[in-house]
């Protein structure tokens, strides 16, 4: 329809329309957009997304894996200590080559220690300790079947890892060494085993690459079958690489002179703390460098009164894949600190012999902690126990001890507060307090950090064992 007023009339409204109306809208829209973008920027950068709340579940369960091994006539025990203020249900699963042998379940009352006998008559014997509804510490104790009955003890491993190292086994004449590989899981595992000696390079036995560990079983791989130690060799070390599934590995060496069980070490570290006491000098340090770079290692001895650099001015040098034995000389009742001066991680374990020649292996601890549960290293009939408290840190540590026996905490005012000076090892004789009964110790540092362990002699003084304590996880509910 044509505009009756003509084109000029049609243009008039625009001509009369004030331009500021549109300009006003432009300004309004621009302000709105600026507000939107600005506030968005502020929200995004200033406020950000809300964090996820922490979970409120405080139920705890877990497991300890004890590839302790055994032999004909041997007896084995699992010591379980509950430092918490609530009872904890525990289920033991004992494993052999044919699968699970038994699965007893029991409750460890609050602040108690329970020692249960487990099968240990075969070299592949191992035990899984599951704890439900709380936290416990667990360790294994092994007593040989011959007379004198030698002794071995080890703290149990917290879980499976991709690689396990057992640095110090020997396969010399009269010695039999085993890698005890346990697979308590529902899935078959396949592992490769690498053997090293201090004189030869890596050995890859064809029968052990891979080796299948069926689900729910435990096997003992006799290292003597693959490597016999030459007269000039001091060390045979085993490495278990997991291809498939999950396993936990330990070492067991049996000889006419003694029995030593060795917990596997899952990964190397640049620093290790290895307390020790009541051993016959000299003791030996086994060092392994599994990495591809040369490691320069310093060894420091820390006794009750002094600390000393054993490697002198020149650190011990370990080539890639090299394993080496290092004699610790005449240091009595001294702990050792091994540290890599060039920050290349290494393995370190300490071999000590008791007065009667029974050897013990002590794996190192890479991290100091504020609280430890030190498990007994003697069988239920008892023996001499010496608590080892090594402070490798730079500040003095003030610790209190709670002795936990079969019936609960044992009162002992003298252990209420102990100061462990920096760079020193302090020992506490537990035998007088516990009447030579096996006793666990909850070590709590109110200041500083320490590494705690235990050295023990059997009742007859022939068997010697040493073990490290178990760090208590932080935030443990109702910790005593």
């Amino acid at each position: 329809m044509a505009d009756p007023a003509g084109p000029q009339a049609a243009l008039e409204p625009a001509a009369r329309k004030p331009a500021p109306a549109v300009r006003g809208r432009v300004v309004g829209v621009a302000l709105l957009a600026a507000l939107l973008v600005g506030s968005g920027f502020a929200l995004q950068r200033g406020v950000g997304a809300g964090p996820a709340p922490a979970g409120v579940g405080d139920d705890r369960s877990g497991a300890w894996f004890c590839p302790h091994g055994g032999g004909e006539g041997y007896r084995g025990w699992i010591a379980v200590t509950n430092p918490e203020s609530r009872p904890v249900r525990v289920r033991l699963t004992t494993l052999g080559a044919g699968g699970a042998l038994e699965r007893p379940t029991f409750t460890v009352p609050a602040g108690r220690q329970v020692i249960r006998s487990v099968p240990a008559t075969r070299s592949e014997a191992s035990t899984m300790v599951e704890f439900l509804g709380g936290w416990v510490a667990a360790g294994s104790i092994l007593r040989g079947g011959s007379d004198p009955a030698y002794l071995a003890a080890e703290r149990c491993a917290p879980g499976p890892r991709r690689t396990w190292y057992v640095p110090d086994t020997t396969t010399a004449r009269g010695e039999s060494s085993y890698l005890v590989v346990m697979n308590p899981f529902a899935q078959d595992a396949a592992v490769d085993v690498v053997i090293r000696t201090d004189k030869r390079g890596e050995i890859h036995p064809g029968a052990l690459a891979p080796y299948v560990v069926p689900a729910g079983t435990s096997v003992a791989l006799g290292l003597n079958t693959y490597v016999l130690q030459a007269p000039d060799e001091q060390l045979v070390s085993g490495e278990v690489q997991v291809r498939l599934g999950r396993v936990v590995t330990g070492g067991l060496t049996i000889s006419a002179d003694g029995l030593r069980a060795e917990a596997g070490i899952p990964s190397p570290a640049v620093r290790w703390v290895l307390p020790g006491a009541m051993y016959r000098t000299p003791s030996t340090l086994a060092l392994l460098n599994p990495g591809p770079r040369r490691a320069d290692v310093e060894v420091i001895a820390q006794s009750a009164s002094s600390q000393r650099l054993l490697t002198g001015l020149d650190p011990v040098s370990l080539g890639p894949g090299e394993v080496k034995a290092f004699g610790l000389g005449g240091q009595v009742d001294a702990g050792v600190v091994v540290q890599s001066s060039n920050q290349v991680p290494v393995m370190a374990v300490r071999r000590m012999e008791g007065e009667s020649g029974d050897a013990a292996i002590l794996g190192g601890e890479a991290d100091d902690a504020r609280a430890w549960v030190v498990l007994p290293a003697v069988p239920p009939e008892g023996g001499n126990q010496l608590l080892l408290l090594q402070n490798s840190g730079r500040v003095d540590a003030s610790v209190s001890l709670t002795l936990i026996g079969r019936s609960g905490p044992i009162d002992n005012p003298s252990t209420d507060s102990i100061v462990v000076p920096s760079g020193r090892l302090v020992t506490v004789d537990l035998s007088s307090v516990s009447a030579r009964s096996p006793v666990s110790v909850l070590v709590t540092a109110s200041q500083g950090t320490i590494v705690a362990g235990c050295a023990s002699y059997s009742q007859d003084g022939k068997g010697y064992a040493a073990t490290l304590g178990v760090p208590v996880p932080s935030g443990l509910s109702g910790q005593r």
Partner: protein
Amino acid sequence: MSEASGSARATRPPSVLVVLVAKDGASWLRQCLLALSKQTHPRLGVLAVDTGSTDGSLELLEQALGADRVTTLDRNPGFATAVASATRTEAAREADYLLLLHDDAVLAPDAIARMVEAAERIEGVGIVGPKILDWEEPRLLREIGMSSDRFGYPYSPLEEGEIDQGQYDRVREVLFVSSSAMLVSKEAWGRIGLPDERLDSAHEDLDFCWRARIAGFRVLMTPAAEARHRGASGRGEPDGSRQGTRGRYERERASLVSILKNYRLISLLWLLPLHAIQGLMRLVVFTASRRFGDAYQLLAAWGWNLINLPGTLARRFRAQRRRTVSDREVRQYMAPAGERLRRWAALARQALIPPRAEPELGDEEGEVTLRVPIRVQLGRLALAHPAGAVWLLAGVLAAIAYRNLFGTSLLEGGALARFPAAPSDFFREVGSGLRHTGLGGTQAASPAVGILGVASVITFGSPALLQKLLLLGLPAVAGVACYRAVRAATNGGAPAVVAALCYSLSAVVLWGVSEGRIPALVFLAGLPWLATKLREAFDSAVPTRSLRWVVGAGLGLAVLASFFPGALLAGAIIAVWAAATAPGTAARARGLVLTAGALATAALLALPVTFGVIASAGGLMADRVGAPSFFSLLRLSFGHGPGAWVVAAFLPLGAALSLVFVPSWARLAGWCVLAAVSSLYLAWLGGAGYLPAALSNPIAFVGLAAFCCSMLVGLGLSSLATGVERQAFGLQQVGGAAVVLVLGVGLLAQAGNAANAGWEVGGAERLPLAYPLVGQPGAAGYRVLWLGPWSGGDLSPPAGTPERRVPAGDASIAYAVTGPGGGEITDVGRASAGAGYEALDRALTDILAGGTRHGGALLSTFGIRFVVARSGSLAPQTVRRLHSQLDLDRVSGGDLILFRNPGAAPLASIVPGPEWRSAAGGSEFATLASLPPPARAARLPFDLEAPLRASDGLVFLSQQFDGRWRLEREGRGSAMKPSRAFGWAVGFPVTEADGGVRLRFGGQTARDVELALVAVLWLAALWITRRPSRG
């Protein structure tokens, strides 16, 4: 024509008997009689049959013709019967031709003569009809001979309102002519008989002429003969005529009768099934579009044909006996097959696109026709039909963008939920009192599942096809819905088309396609309707019938909420801002009351969803899509997928520029701005975790923002398009150019990005390579726990979308529990809530935050055999915690983080031994964590035919507890009631003395009642909102 009659013709003209059938036609009968009196044909007789007229028609006939030329029938038996009564007279027997004539037809003076002339001059003519013009407007053509399609539906080559300009002025051989004025030779009616007396007067002509055709007679329309036809029965005249309300019924039954009688058997063998299919499709369309009257008439026509089949077969026998020509020869007079498609397209256009205001007459007067280049013509065509042009372009774009999806047999990937194998699975889930997904229980399926079931029947019983159609077609539906909404607001075609394109190509819609989020796409497609509908309630200028409006809005809201409960949040925002911008207090109050009514109606119609929303404390309305950045939200995007790039900001930017030109900050524009801005803030707050779970649905908010922006674009363009050319050059023109530039570049870039086809969904290759380790769609008997990041985002395909979240600090997760086949569409609109989910939350919290290492045992009672996550999607702490579980075995899964739980319990089993039986009574952590694997458990199907022998132990159902389960025991008389196992599941402690046991669920009756109630409510709602018949 015979030789005898040929010789007779030489001496004198043939005689014609006009059979005038009258019924209450006094108003127009006089003109009819007057026209007859003026006929120039020399040998003409008239015989009138009055079929029970009460308006004086009889008297008029007797007065005009004499009583002896009027036959009276007491009642109206129909046109054919009336003709039959006339043909029994002596005059009929002596006539060479019969002219069947309706009382509302007026013949031109020479019409009969011309028709006879045509019949006599052309050999083999049996029937002749005139050119029929409009009664009131003789310039308009009404009929020039008719055709039909293959299924017997009449077809006229005339366009609506076509003016007679002589374009059809030639003798045409046609399939049939109208019986309103039909000249029939004596030979023809002698051989083929009379019209089928069972058919209505407006529909017997096709069958009659068709019979003449197959008997070898020609049917002609001669334009030399003209008649005007009132079509009184079609107009519902005279009063009381049934034609006006039963048109579809008459047409349908006549078409079916015609094809049954006149096709050869061999033709019927392929035509009848096709006829049935298209009939069923129309039935579905009628039902779906709430045209129940049409559906009823269609069914009634089929029923009539079924009942009258014997009579039809007898008539068929007679007709086929006289056949002299093949179907192929007859078919050349039928309309081409594509004609029906064209008609359907026209109908669809009418339904989808609201009619435009007619341009004022005279606009194009005086226009000089010039020869213009083809590209200019195409351009003009596109401008004149923007919707059609965009449909064409959209089709091309879709063909390119979906090229990888068309050929895929089964869509996978993204967050796509699996569709069942058969439609019956939908109906089984809807009808069942048990939930077969997630952790089970008794929560009823959403009505959406029933809708999908019906839809999958329509898609030839193929849910996979339905899935593809929905995924690929819903963006187009969203565009159409946006077009309608904008068109209704602006009455501008082109601006509405641009707005629709903006919406369809917005980042949120493309993201929905990419991720395969069909429920979200349903929401996005329905959102423009919802917004328009709810705003309507607050607009006092829009008249609404309250009940119909309330039920209609409630019905739509129920459909959307059934698919996507977050639609309620969008609805709330729409209503809040509509109330805020309402023109007055009265309108505000009215709107709020109507909206509340609609919400209540929706709550009733979507009853299971309503229960779900309540049970989950609103959690069902939530949808976690991750923690989007505010700047990606400004692009209306969630950060991933095609069209989510920076160019996606074209829509908000274009909306802002358009806003400048919306006149006087119109109320609708104000509403759009408020809704869009508030939605963006809510989307960010919800995604960032600052809103309660019930209000956290970024999809709903961003979808609303996208629609509001599109509406603003439409409003702005509409404002720019009107009068911009009349104004002096200035800001308006510059701004308009800027808007066009932004939108043009944005739309092109978005289309290009979509055409790149980088969708997350695709074929089987979209599933993780390791998925076969977890399960297959057919696998059953265990569950899969899918984990994803806490902040949301998709789980690994085919898990679907996250259902719940577990806070555990750095190890927090979102998760979903499904069967081995992944997320299922039958779970749409159903809350993952209940004691089972709460127990699972606790178990996962213990695993991820509490330090337990017996996760497998904790998950065992849930039947969870696999824990799965997409590689790299979980926080490192989460993976560490999972790794540390003693009884979860890590399986090497390539692109998946995959753990197997070897101790998972079967979903229904008899677990022997005392451990499970005693543990089932409690839910303490230590008890659960120490549960031994149910190694010797005997599986126990729900639908057990023969009882399973019980041993001492626990009959355990890994289903959320419901007290209506029963265990029937052979050894005991009474059925055992269940106990709550592990705090959430169903358990029956049994002993060997119980003998054989069988499970039975006693809640099915309640579900049947609930289903019946919901069905009645839906039927009532559909009936209230039904649309008028177009028959």
